[in-house]
């Protein structure tokens, strides 16, 4: 019961904070935060609840971003369809790469996803439709369902906000469904889950595809926000960043990835002029989290709340 109340209060706080955010921060920055929060939540679904560490989630984020941008710029798709195109692309890519990657576990899984993502990166570097080093420009936000003009940053912000809330609730639903419970069982003890009669491969593949699709949704939304898609979205550093956000916020916690995304994206914004220092600091946060802060920010808060109650 308490767990439920905590999640409700947490959700209410998060909802109000993001709903009021554009009055305090730049909407453009707020949208960036929300997109990466979706991305980190999608990643957390896989590592936090499925126990699978993917080091290649940039391929889904990047391909979602590219296809949404291309659908908008070249085919003139309206924003809803462009975003769906991006997410659907990542779904297909998720099925293909997941089928290969789930054949191994643990660190092999991490290495395989990293290698597959690098292959996608080289594909994007060479393929004519991505514009190579230049990326895709000329993305048009247009209007939502032909009604709401999205040229206004504030209008666009609330669309992104709605996508974030929907994605967040969807992930919450998946985690608390019977499917999510089986996933947790597989994470804790896969041989036992197999002996109980679960086809664990299928569950893992399904979790991988869901995570990939949501990461693609995040990338597609980001493409509509920044009105471009580029190679940065699909490079391995992006895969590393989403791992960092989730680790810092708290792996396996519901709100951790959101908090982690906020911290990392804010840091990148405020330290942008320091150049390579951003990389050094990110590396240092990784080392610090692994050595002394494995529960992450939200994980520590939860542990503190539990201790206070006891």
């Amino acid at each position: 019961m308490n767990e439920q109340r905590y999640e409700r209060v947490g959700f209410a706080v998060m909802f109000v904070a993001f709903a009021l955010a554009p009055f305090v921060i730049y909407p453009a920055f707020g949208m960036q935060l929300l997109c990466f929060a979706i991305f980190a939540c999608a990643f957390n679904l896989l590592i936090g609840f499925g126990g699978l560490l993917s080091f290649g989630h940039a391929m889904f984020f990047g391909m979602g971003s590219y296809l949404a941008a291309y659908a908008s710029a070249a085919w003139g798709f309206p924003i809803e369809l462009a975003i769906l195109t991006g997410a659907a692309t990542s779904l297909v890519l998720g099925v293909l790469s997941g089928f290969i990657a789930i054949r191994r576990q643990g660190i092999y899984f991490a290495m395989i996803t990293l290698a597959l993502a690098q292959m996608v990166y080289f594909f994007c570097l060479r393929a004519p439709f991505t514009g190579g080093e230049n990326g895709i420009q000329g993305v048009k936000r247009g209007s939502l369902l032909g009604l709401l003009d999205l040229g206004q940053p504030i209008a666009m912000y609330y669309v992104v906000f709605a996508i974030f809330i929907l994605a967040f609730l969807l992930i919450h639903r998946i985690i608390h469904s019977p499917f999510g419970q089986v996933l947790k069982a597989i994470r804790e003890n896969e041989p036992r889950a197999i002996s109980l009669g679960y086809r664990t491969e299928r569950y893992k593949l399904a979790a991988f595809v869901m995570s990939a699709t949501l990461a693609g949704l995040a990338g597609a939304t980001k493409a509509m926000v920044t009105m471009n898609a580029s190679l940065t979205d699909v490079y391995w550093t992006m895969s590393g960043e989403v791992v960092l956000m989730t680790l810092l916020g708290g792996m396996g916690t519901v709100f951790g990835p959101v908090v982690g995304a906020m911290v990392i994206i804010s840091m990148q914004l405020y330290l942008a002029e320091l150049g390579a220092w951003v990389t050094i600091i990110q590396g240092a946060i990784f080392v610090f989290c692994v050595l002394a802060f494995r529960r992450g920010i939200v994980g520590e808060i939860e542990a503190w709340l539990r201790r206070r109650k006891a």
Partner: protein
Amino acid sequence: MNTQALFGQLLIGLINGSFYALLSLGLAVIFGLLNIINFTHGALYMTGAFVSYFLLEKAGLGYWWALVIAPIVVGAVGVVIERLMLSRLYKLDHLYGLLLTFGLALMIEGGFQHEFGSAGLPYSMPESLQGVQNLGFMFLPNYRAWVIFASLVICFSTWFLIERTKLGAYLRAATENPSLVQAFGVNVPRMITLTYGLGVGLAALAGVFAAPIYQVSPQMGSSLIIVVFAVVVIGGMGSIMGSILTGFGLGIIEGLTKYIYPEASNTVIFVIMAIVLMIRPQGLFGQR
């Protein structure tokens, strides 16, 4: 058929294969005993190249000195990393080792990038290895021949050390069952530390080999290490000889692809990885 170009690409393939073999060998040795995948491997390979650059620029010590000093310096750095950080993680999920070494790699690469920017620094070839041999069907630069020869010697010495000596027998035993080996009076924690030092020392050596061929730059390790990960997945980390054969073999295949269908040369190793995973998930030489 342009045989000149074909042999040229095969030579580049063999050179790349040498680096794949040296790096995946180090990864396999470290993985065997520490059960972690060393993400810093690429960054320490780059550090090895930078150490040889510094030795030449600041101390006037040339290539041959670098071949000895760079692996020792980087190996010492590895010993410190293992003692201070990695040793705290052995009781945890192996994924934490991956995350920690990834963070360290970012710090090392970021540090070098901050100091030297992204542009490459030139490192001149030792005079004794300049020049080219005319083999009739192709021209063979002496330095490249040396790199292939030296890599082969080092790979097979490492194989001999691990598979055919008493020290190697301890190492293999500790890989199988560390607590039992410890009970026999072998200092396993020290062995683990030295193994990590040896593994990253091999990476640094590869970095010295690479310095005169490629430019010395902060990014030279990160893209290479991802390919090496794919090589490791293809070979499976079960055997030392497997790592060597897979490394050289894939280098040659990559070279051939560059000749036959250049567009695919960046991705061919990843495609092979996907195919191997479909047919034989444990890798070509992997057990289980």
